[in-house]
């Protein structure tokens, strides 16, 4: 399924615990200012897959 949204959060006191997008998947990229970004994909049913 096509990814319809890509969201990135730089840690600074917040985190995204999930994200939903109408009609497709959401790719979440968590990254710190000094660390390696990690990506997760949330499908339209809300299932989170680590990459």
């Amino acid at each position, binding site marked *: 399924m096509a990814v319809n949204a890509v969201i*990135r959060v730089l840690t600074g006191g917040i985190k995204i615990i999930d994200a939903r997008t109408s009609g497709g998947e959401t790719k979440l990229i968590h990254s710190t200012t000094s660390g390696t970004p990690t990506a997760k994909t949330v499908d339209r049913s809300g299932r989170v897959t680590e990459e």
Partner: protein
Amino acid sequence: MPVTSLFSLFRSRGWGRQSEAQLDVLYLGATTTTTATVTPTAPYSGMVVHLITFHRMLPGAFKVTVSQREVGVHTVQLSSDLADVSFWAWVTDADPLLVTVENRTSWPGYIGATLATINFDTLEQMRSIRSQATEEFGLSEGTLTPGPAESSARRG
């Protein structure tokens, strides 16, 4: 009661730790809506989110909705290349902040957001400070939430 005076109170008392967090929607498909559920992260257990500044966007392309249990639902049509959304939300794992961005155009877009927060180490600390702030403003418990008292958009 302007939100800025409440923020000034927190600054003057040294309550919480002020910070800004970056939230980027790097890609948002045409006529697509996405909702991010935001909570505090370690080492913090609670936070006030009081301002979201949106940037790097096409004028008129995005509609943003902020919702949280106490704030309710607050929708803003972003109208320039920089827009501020002000509110006052006490956010915890149990009461997350939902930020919804709708791309109203027929082509993909992207948008950046900076969340201004006041972070608290523990929920007990947040409750205590909230109680003190409530007392100083002479408000009844539960009303220290101006909510969507103001929103504005300005040219960048």
